[in-house]
């Protein structure tokens, strides 16, 4: 918990640490002070690190058996499923791992939105996090193309075609992305190459994300700064480590339940049909975690407009620390924001639902309404709310809210009476 300089015990360790301070780093990670009131929503950072490492390890093994060629990709996946020892397990962990990764990242992001973790002084952590999220989406999208099923092929066709909406140079960009005049073997090959690369970039960004976190320290459910080196913080190890592992195990149980008992529930059956450029599936849908953006894309009547709004929906989040003008971080003390937070959660889920439906009739109308609300929330509501919302009084420290519980005032009077008549200055 202490911030004073760490000096290793043995001479050898001192010699090494003065040349490469790895021991200082590990000491810092171990003693890193965390607010004692962090709840279980704060365990998703650790869970996400676990997800990334799981994806990298299982991906590494899959890459040893997978063949990135339009004639062999589909068969090589089936070879993994049937003939490679525990290949089915590795592939199902990897495929469901992507879904679980996104489930965790969405919880992590919404936790940040609820408790205002993106606000000063944590803007850089937030922006690095969003870049990680964008990389995750790119990686997942390209990974979904690799099995070369019908949804792989047609999903790739739809998404890469979006770039053709860019005026003047769009067509050339699309051709350049494809490495030809349609999604074909060159596309599959480069997607494989990038799918292998991006997780390592993500890993680097995760290190930066954690580094940036360790400068100001964790936000907390109350959203006010904690005093370091006080009773308000506890060392990361063993307290947060134990809490993180507890949450991680619950997460792994849910994860493995999907892997063993419903491994294809989150995928699309059409992806078990080998890609066929001559047969278009009746509905082309991306994976569930991309559906909200897909709904925004289709809600806008023009192709270029749809693409702009879809990307804007992601990039607008980068501006969030400045769009949200409220100085109060936690939604606990923002009665109106709290309600709109849940409206936003609902809107995003609604968009996800609509993304899976054909863009017609009532679905289209709802997508437009939801898209409008999504942008309204960030561009209008948050700036205005920060100015006019009457927030609840903030406690002086994170320990105080406990004292606000019914009956505590009486308890206090009892404690206070103990000190009655004594000189205040005698307590040091």
């Amino acid at each position, binding site marked *: 918990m202490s911030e004073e300089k760490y000096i290793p015990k043995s001479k050898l360790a001192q010699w090494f640490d003065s040349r490469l301070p790895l021991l200082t780093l590990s000491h810092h990670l171990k003693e890193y002070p965390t607010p004692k009131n962090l709840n279980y929503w704060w365990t998703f950072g650790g869970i996400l690190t676990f997800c990334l490492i799981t994806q990298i390890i299982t991906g590494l093994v899959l890459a040893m058996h997978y063949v990135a060629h339009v004639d062999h990709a589909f*068969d090589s996946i*089936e070879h993994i*499923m*049937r003939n490679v020892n525990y290949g*089915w*397990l590795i592939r199902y962990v990897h495929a469901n791992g992507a879904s679980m990764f996104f489930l965790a990242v969405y919880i992590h992001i919404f936790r940040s939105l609820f408790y205002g973790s993106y606000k000063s002084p944590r803007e850089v952590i937030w922006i690095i996090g969003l870049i990680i999220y964008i990389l995750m989406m790119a990686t997942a999208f390209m990974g979904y193309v690799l099995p070369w099923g019908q949804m792989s092929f047609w999903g790739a066709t739809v998404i890469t075609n979006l770039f053709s909406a860019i005026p003047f140079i769009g067509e050339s960009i699309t051709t350049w992305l494809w490495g030809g005049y349609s999604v074909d073997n060159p596309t599959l090959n480069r997607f494989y190459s990038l799918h292998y690369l991006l997780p390592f970039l993500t890993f680097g960004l995760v290190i930066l994300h954690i580094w940036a976190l360790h400068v100001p320290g964790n936000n907390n459910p109350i959203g006010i700064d904690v005093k370091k080196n006080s*009773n308000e913080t*506890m060392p990361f190890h*063993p*307290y947060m480590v*134990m*809490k993180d*592992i*507890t949450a991680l*195990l*619950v997460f*792994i*149980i849910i994860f*493995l*339940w999907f*892997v*063993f*008992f419903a*491994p*294809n529930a989150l995928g699309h*059956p*059409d992806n*078990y*049909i*080998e890609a066929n450029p001559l047969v278009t599936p*009746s509905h082309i849908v991306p994976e569930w975690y991309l559906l909200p953006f897909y709904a925004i894309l289709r809600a806008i009547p023009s192709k270029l407009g749809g693409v702009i709004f879809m990307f804007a929906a992601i990039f607008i989040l980068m501006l969030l620390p400045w769009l949200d003008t409220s100085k109060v971080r936690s939604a606990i003390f923002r*009665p*109106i924001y*709290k*309600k709109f937070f*849940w*409206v936003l959660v*609902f809107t995003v889920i*609604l968009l996800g639902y609509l993304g899976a439906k054909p863009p*017609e*009739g*009532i*679905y289209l109308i*709802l997508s437009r309404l939801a898209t409008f609300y999504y942008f309204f929330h960030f561009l209008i509501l948050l700036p205005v709310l920060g100015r006019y919302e009457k927030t609840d009084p903030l406690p*002086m*420290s994170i*320990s*105080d809210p406990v*004292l606000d519980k*019914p*009956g505590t*005032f*009486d308890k*206090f009077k009892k*404690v*206070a009476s103990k*000190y009655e008549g004594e000189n*205040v200055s005698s*307590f*040091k």
Partner: protein
Amino acid sequence: MLVHSNNFLIKIIIFFFILFTTSSAFSEEKKVDLIKTNWSFNGIFGTFDRASLQRGYQVYQEVCAGCHSMQQLSYRNLSEEGGPEFSIEEVKAIASQFEIEDGPNSDGEMFMRAARPSDKFAKPYPNIEASTAANGGAYPPDMSVLAKARVGGADYIYSLLMGYEEAPPGFELDDGVYYNKYMAGNKIKMSAPISDGIVEYSDGTQTSASQISKDVTTFLVWASEPHLESQHRMGFKAIIYLIILLTLVYMSKQKVWSRFNSKKESEEETFDKVERTVTKYEGEDPKTFK
């Protein structure tokens, strides 16, 4: 503004709920419910019925294999654990009934030979085009992962096999197209493949269309997920193990945290707290705080 937070949220939820329910009423295609069967392989303890798998293989071979390939499967799979579990001798005998192209030999010629257990299932047509051409322009899909490639899986396949009916009056059908209750658009180019007694079972099982369809469906589910049984077994063990581990970890976590929680507050800290609270409530009547 928005004083009654819960009412506000509830109103929004009700609004969208009504939109959802009404929207699905007039914009979704009419869906026919699939026939639900209580398959032995469903659920977390699900296993295959070996006899049904063996019969299912027979049905596939005698009825389906004329048009539908199963190119991901090898004959050896038929003897592997968790499948139909034919004996190795039986599989050798099964494989040897088929001719496979091999080569080139030392003269550079391709040649035909009897299949071995290590060979993939023999294909009815050399390629997709030949198969499409021979079947009135509709490609009979490869059956290796068919059960995973259809919404509804086993129930869909079984329903489809049982779903052939007379077309309702006024429903136009071209030559070589049949009416099926469960097919998208109700038009299918495959004539009803299963009928009572179309195969003869050596184990004396009755050969109703429904029994035959069940057997072949079971076989197709195994074919698309050959490790299903070990998947279920391992899953059960893994989850039980994790639940025990979670309990222990949670107890350790509580123990570790109690160290911190029970740390005696220093007098200074207690005083700080009192001071803060007293300042906060200063000037207010203590009785108003419950």
